[in-house]
């Protein structure tokens, strides 16, 4: 009987379990869960604050998930060290686990820059885990002034989740635009205007330099008073356990399209990995939930002896703030990168389609996002735009842009 050990208990781990079980129904699976929680959806922590979900509905899988998949889960236990020669994982409770196939799904941790005076701040939080959300919920009240450092996905979702619960929210970021990882200037401005209308204050191109109790001294010289500080500067992949046994790493653990690391019998998936972005053909950390699942699932199948690949991963995001939705996918190659950009815009909406080498390389949409998956699929399939009616599809995503024959294939059989 095969022995599988999974370090981590989030999305990639769940994908891995389902991948293994789709091939091997009897092998022994042990999950090392640092967090004391049943697998839950991490991005839902902002929806929890917003009261759009609750602890039960946040569970990523049904209550009988581990039981049905015959997994032994060790809660509140961390893996400390891997012995690659003996194929053993040492745990912080003094025990060790032996494995035949190992999955490292250690995720990422908030990066907290060494701010001067940070230790003088009483109420400071990161925003990554359910425990962070619960602690923030307990601390804030309707008069709280909240300062969020970081106007990225984590910081702004936190702002959305908290807005109704607190008195004031200010968000600062060194970058001069919001959501700089998914938007260009023009798109960021539309979302920023929307968020400002809802009552969020921004200090962009500016960040905290020093803290003194409840005051942040900003680089611009401004002082910002706050009661609660949220640090959402960025995340770092958790790679120490892999690096120390010689697994190839860069910013994260390097994996191939079968999710194998450089060491035999050791796989990795999720936020702790760096892998090929199909839309730009370069290795990246694409720390997004769908990819974590797809990677984990692929790894699991391979660990159980199948040969599966996930070879068309792209960065992509679907995110809404106060009813205004945004989607992005792929790589934004515009004129300066040898690409071409098709733009359609208004005051509250925008669509940018980026075309390079005759295929759609990426897109950003704010506003009407319906059927956007048709665009995503063009990126994933590297569909030659000369083979479809691009004039039609650029206005709105539709299968009508495909030839009758291809449409027949898409809609006429089992896919």
């Amino acid at each position, binding site marked *: 009987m095969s022995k599988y050990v999974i370090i981590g208990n989030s999305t990639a781990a769940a*994908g891995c379990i389902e991948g293994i079980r789709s091939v091997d129904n009897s092998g022994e699976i042990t999950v090392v869960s640092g967090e004391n929680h049943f697998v839950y*959806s991490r*991005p*839902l922590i902002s*929806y929890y604050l917003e009261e*759009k*979900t609750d602890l039960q*509905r*946040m*569970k*990523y*899988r*049904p209550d009988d998930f581990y039981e049905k998949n015959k997994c032994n889960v060790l809660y509140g236990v961390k893996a400390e060290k891997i012995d690659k020669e003996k194929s053993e994982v040492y745990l912080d409770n003094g025990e060790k686990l032996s494995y035949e196939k190992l999955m490292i799904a250690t995720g990422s941790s908030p990066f907290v820059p060494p701010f001067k005076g940070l230790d003088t701040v009483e109420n400071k939080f990161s925003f990554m885990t359910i425990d962070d959300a619960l602690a923030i919920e307990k601390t804030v009240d309707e008069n709280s002034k909240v300062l969020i450092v970081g106007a990225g996905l984590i910081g702004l979702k936190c702002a959305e989740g908290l807005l109704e619960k607190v008195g004031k929210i200010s968000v600062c970021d060194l970058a001069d635009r919001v959501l700089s990882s998914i938007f260009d200037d023009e798109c960021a401005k539309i979302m920023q205007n929307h968020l400002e209308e809802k009552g969020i204050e921004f200090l962009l191109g500016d960040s905290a330099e020093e803290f003194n109790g409840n005051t942040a001294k900003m680089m611009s010289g401004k002082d910002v008073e706050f009661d609660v500080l949220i640090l959402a500067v960025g995340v770092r992949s958790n790679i120490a356990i892999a690096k120390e046994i010689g697994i190839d790493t860069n910013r994260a653990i390097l994996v191939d399209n079968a999710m194998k690391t450089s060491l035999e019998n050791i796989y990795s998936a999720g936020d702790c990995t760096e892998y090929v972005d199909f839309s730009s053909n370069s290795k990246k950390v694409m720390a997004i*939930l*769908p990819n974590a*699942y*797809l990677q984990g*699932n692929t790894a699991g199948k391979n660990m159980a002896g199948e040969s599966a690949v996930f070879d068309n991963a792209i960065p*992509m*995001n*679907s*995110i*809404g703030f106060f*009813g205004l*939705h945004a*989607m992005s*996918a792929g790589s934004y190659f515009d004129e300066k990168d040898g690409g071409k950009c098709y733009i359609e815009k208004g005051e509250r909406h925008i669509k940018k389609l980026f075309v390079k080498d005759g295929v759609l390389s990426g897109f950003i949409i704010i506003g009407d*996002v*319906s*059927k*956007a*998956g*048709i665009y*995503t*699929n063009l990126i994933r399939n590297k569909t030659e735009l000369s083979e479809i009616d691009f004039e039609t599809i650029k206005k709105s*995503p*539709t*299968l*009508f842009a495909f030839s*009758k024959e291809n*449409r*027949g294939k*898409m*809609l*006429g*059989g*089992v*896919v």
Partner: protein
Amino acid sequence: MKRVFVNEKWCLGCHLCEYNCAFANSGLDNMAKALKDKKIYPRIRIEGDENINYAVSCRHCTDPMCVKSCITGALSINDGVITINQEKCVGCLTCILVCPYGCISQNENSVAQKCELCLKNSSGEPACVKGCPNNAIVYEER
């Protein structure tokens, strides 16, 4: 497993399937009450132009990107049918971002909705198929 298929040669583009879908999923027993003067949210949509039309609804993929990408676990496969637990869905729309067919949409409460073959509503079998005047939509095994 039986699925819904469209024959674009026979589709008239009459949009009746959209109305029958919205009615079947309304939970009401009177079509006028369910649909009259209301914006409808059908899970099947007619595409095309003046000459060519066809209906598009969930393909119930065997390896579905929507299920694999769902951030909440609200989408799952049950006996081959891809279903959504709207209580769990928070309306992040990642499923819309990844569905290659454009078959998932937002309902009136801003959460995701999709064709579940009418197996959970009072129609019991796809209402779009039952009500198609030209037999352009069929429910069969292929």
